[in-house]
């Protein structure tokens, strides 16, 4: 398909210029690596401290606890990663997560398949509405998904009799999914791992992923370059809604009921995990691998604070918040460094 264009020979640039180019290439690569892998490095560091300081942290059982409690947040954060890279935000995922849990528990009376499908359909539908409004009316994602947050919360309350009724999971198979293990890891952890692998391929190795980055980098340029901007936007919000619903289902399976009182502020935890994982809040850059590191970092911090015991649990949020602030400052600095050279 390439056209054969002969370009007149160009005098090679002076050696000094080439040297500068190579130096710039190298610097850019280093800064890029720090941006992408910073969260992983911090995670390893914090885990190492935990290993040295707390005997209980070292146990395999504890590692499993960290993973299983991180799984729902991981799923939500995966969808959020896509949304944020397009330059958007999805505030509705916290409500959808709770709604998904309630619906899954309720639908479990019709079997395990229904318990998964019902929340996926309902939360996916919320995602479609979010996506269509963002893409076609050009309303701010912040506003659109805030409305969805309220709507989903209202729906959840209506379904659960003002939150007072807790549906128990009726399907044995569904409950078994929440508590069972395979090769020492809980099923939800396997699910999260599989979806993250899929997400990494989708974002990094497909044309859809390329469109996601392009839109976040510059929506106007993306449109002029022939990217199907609106379709891609709808897709990322649907993905985010689906994953939030799935996270709710996973949580319901694990707890054995559709708990109505959780989930406040989960959307903010997810955003924090994504940003700590190196994704730019302004869009255009980020990775799925970084998001895993971000989610685990939050989980490990929480776990360590539980180990200390005497510290109030609220400190977890203070520490996570501090991490977030540091990450944002460092990101800004690194982005500028790349620009200036």
């Amino acid at each position, binding site marked *: 398909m390439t*056209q054969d264009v*002969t*370009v007149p020979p160009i005098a090679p640039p002076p050696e000094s210029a080439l040297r500068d180019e190579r130096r710039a290439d190298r610097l*850019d690569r280093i800064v890029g690596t720090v941006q992408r892998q910073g969260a992983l490095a911090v995670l390893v560091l914090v885990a190492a401290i935990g290993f040295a300081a707390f005997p209980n942290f070292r146990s395999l059982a504890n590692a499993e606890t960290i993973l299983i409690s991180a799984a729902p947040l991981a799923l939500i954060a995966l969808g959020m990663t896509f949304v944020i890279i397009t330059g958007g935000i999805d505030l509705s995922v916290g409500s959808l997560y709770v709604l998904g849990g309630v619906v899954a528990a309720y639908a479990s009376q019709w079997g395990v398949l229904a318990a998964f499908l019902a929340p996926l359909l309902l939360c996916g539908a919320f995602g479609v509405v979010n996506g269509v409004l963002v893409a076609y009316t050009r309303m701010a994602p912040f506003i659109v998904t805030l409305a969805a947050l309220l709507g989903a919360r209202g729906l959840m309350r209506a379904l659960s009799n003002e939150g007072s009724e807790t549906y128990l999971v009726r399907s044995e198979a569904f409950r078994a999914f929440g508590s069972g293990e395979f090769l020492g890891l809980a099923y939800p952890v396997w699910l999260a791992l599989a979806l993250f692998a899929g997400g990494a391929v989708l974002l990094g190795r497909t044309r859809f992923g390329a469109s996601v980055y*392009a839109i*976040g980098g510059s929506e106007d340029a993306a449109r*002029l370059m022939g990217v199907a901007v609106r379709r891609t936007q709808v897709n990322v919000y649907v993905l985010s809604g689906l994953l939030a619903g799935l996270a709710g289902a996973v949580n319901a399976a694990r707890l054995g009921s559709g708990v109505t009182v959780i989930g406040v502020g989960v959307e903010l935890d997810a955003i924090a995990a994504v940003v700590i994982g190196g994704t730019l809040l302004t869009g255009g850059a980020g990775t799925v691998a970084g998001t895993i590191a971000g989610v685990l970092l939050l989980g490990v911090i929480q776990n360590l604070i539980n180990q200390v015991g005497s510290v109030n649990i609220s400190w977890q949020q203070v520490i996570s918040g501090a991490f977030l602030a540091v990450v944002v400052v460092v990101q800004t600095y690194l982005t500028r460094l790349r*620009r200036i050279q």
Partner: protein
Amino acid sequence: MTLLEVAGVSKTFPGVRALDDVSFALQPGEVHALVGENGAGKSTLIKVLTGVYQPDDGAVRYRGEPVSFGTPLDAQRAGISTIYQEVNLVPLMSVARNLFLGREPRNALGLVDERRMNREAADVLTRYGVRTDVRRQLGTLALGAQQMVALARAVMVDAKVVIMDEPTSSLEPREVETLFGVIRDLHAQGIGIVYVSHRLDELYQICDRVTILRDGRVVHTGPLEELERIRLVSLMLGRDMAEVRREGVTGFTGEHEVQGAQPVLRAAGLRNRHKLHGVDLAVRPGEVVGLGGLLGAGRSETLKAIGGALPLDEGTVEVAGAPLRRRTSVGAVKAGIALLPEDRKAEGIVPSLSVRENIALAVLPRLSRLGLVSEKKIDTIVERFMTRLRIKASSPHQRVGDLSGGNQQKVLLARLLATAPKVLLLDEPTRGIDVGAKAEVQALVDELAAEGLGVVLVSSDAEELIEGADRVVVLRDGVVVGTLDGADVSTEGLLRTIAAASSAAASAATQEEAS
């Protein structure tokens, strides 16, 4: 058969009739120049042709068939490749990703084959003189290199029509040659090309036909050869040939009166590890000093260093005898240095604010007394700059982001001039600005110099540099290699100094090797 054609097309934006009953036809294998003042409607016509805008009225025909492209993608699929004027690529994505966006090579599983993509990107780009790691973020490349990537992207696919909206505005002469090589090649293959530029020399070098737009209407269309340059300008501006002739090539009047011997700007020993190796510069009040040299000589870097936008390892900058202590952009502005940077997209104007608000932002510190500002005073200043620079807007309250590319440049320039600085650093001040307004900008620079400002001018337009500057300091690889004074300030003088420096450097290099 006509390749691409519009008939009776109109397009209205709130407050402006951007296109008014425009007809335009592109034949296969012709390079068709589309010219007109800033805001004449060139970019709008291109956007109507390629599905970015839908025309209010009129028809688009492509290879004889009526078409209606809903999106730029439809136009691309049909074989129309476009380099748009402002945004073309995504700065945060890698060079290779930008080049292949939407047509990435895929492996048997349907996944993007990154290795092949990077290899092919590197191959393609070396032919365009871009030698860089293609995995780098595009935004970290020089502007010219970015533009070459956009060019490569447009030409890579099997296009029947290639449209270029001011492709050369951020290119250096060497890169322009590459572009022309590509255009000649496309021409030989029978591909139709639409070419927009404000640099008239280029049009006469490369174009066969010309269509002139004025205020959204076609005022002339025909072979370019038969059209005298001065007549082209008079048609564009809608003024008499005699009047145009009298005004001459540039708006500069020649020598300036240098006031006082004390330099208003003195920079000494500017060093930045890779770019500058000890540059000295002194500008007296009322003097316009040009910086000459080739691509990579360190002209823009010198300006940025003085303006606090490039970190320095060593060196001092004094304004009116007082050394700058804080070496930041803010510190420089406070000291009275105004910098018009080369890359206009990143900084400068606020697109979502109006023309008036943008200019007001710049003059507020100067006009406000006890936090109060006279609205009337602002209106007067805004009015003055809008008429002087011929900023074409439906009103002072129009959003800057909706102005034509050239008019955005003018607002940026107005903002800078309105700050009443002591030192003005201008990097390519007339880039993207039409011939009429160009002379106005140059006259304005003259006037400011006469008021006692010190001006440093960088321009890839040799005429502008020679006629505008009283003195030209020639740079090469980040060092000063000569200064042209008085009668020496001429194109020949400039070329001679650059050539002498090159051969000196070459012989120094051979000596080094020999020893």
